[in-house]
């Protein structure tokens, strides 16, 4: 198990009662998110729907790379790594 930091940005900090980060033990991003939800249960339904699918407009980074360009939630983590939960911005509608 690696000791990693999960940083909560924007709305995801609010969903955790204002917490900005948590230290968790994990092997990959999925297990880091699972550990995060144990610390902050209020995040559970904000991160995933009832089928376990990660919600839209949530970007997850492992260090400086978005996990969809790595190995998704199976992206491996090492001691000292940081996972970021970032509200994704999209649009362009008039």
């Amino acid at each position: 198990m690696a000791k990693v930091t999960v940083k909560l940005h924007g709305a995801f900090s609010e969903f955790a009662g204002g917490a900005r980060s948590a230290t968790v033990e994990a092997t990959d991003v999925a297990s880091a998110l699972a550990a995060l939800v144990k610390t902050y249960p209020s995040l559970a339904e904000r991160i995933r729907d009832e089928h376990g699918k990660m919600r839209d407009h949530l970007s997850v980074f492992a260090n400086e790379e978005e996990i969809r360009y790595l190995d998704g939630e199976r992206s491996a983590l090492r001691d000292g790594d940081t996972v970021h939960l970032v509200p994704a911005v999209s649009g362009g509608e008039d």
Partner: protein
Amino acid sequence: MARGVAVLLGTKKGAYIFRSGAARERWRPEGPYLMGQPVYHVAFDPRDGQSLYAGVNATWGGPRVEISRDLGKTWKPAKNPAFPQGDPRTFSRTWHIEAGHAKEPNVMWLGTEPASLFKSTDRGQTWESVRALNDHPDAKYWQPGGGGLGLHSIVVDAGDAKSMAIAISSGGVYETSDGGKSWTRQNAGLGSPVPQPPEGDYT
């Protein structure tokens, strides 16, 4: 005559309460509550005089119900409604929240997208699927209207705790007279933009 009146308003950028006196000449705004988040509906619970319920459909964090027990000063999210295990439907929007009958002070009703009704028996903290409606044989004919496939209206009969009506876009009006155990389509005389089975209208 009422001493004052309050209008609860959900907007794309939060919820507001507008208050006025009996003459309704001037309105005083309060809010925004849940700032920056799309609020489809705000409901007041007249049975306790303190609770507000908001249907929030946020870009971030998904849909949810927020509950205030102090007329909007503070809010906490409820546990999301969920379909029974194995049901492929996913709760995707909150459309309508309605206080139950005065004789059932802990009951709340919730209309969602996809068009479904949920019942709470703990003042909105948790929600259970009303399967007699959500799995109704007609459900296969319901089609999304311009705003989606939502159960957007709930009316509780003040004179009978077992009677209520709901409306779906596009599915029409359904009524129950046994507290939600069975539902009857009440669309006679209404036109419908969706393909019609031979036995009736789905407006």
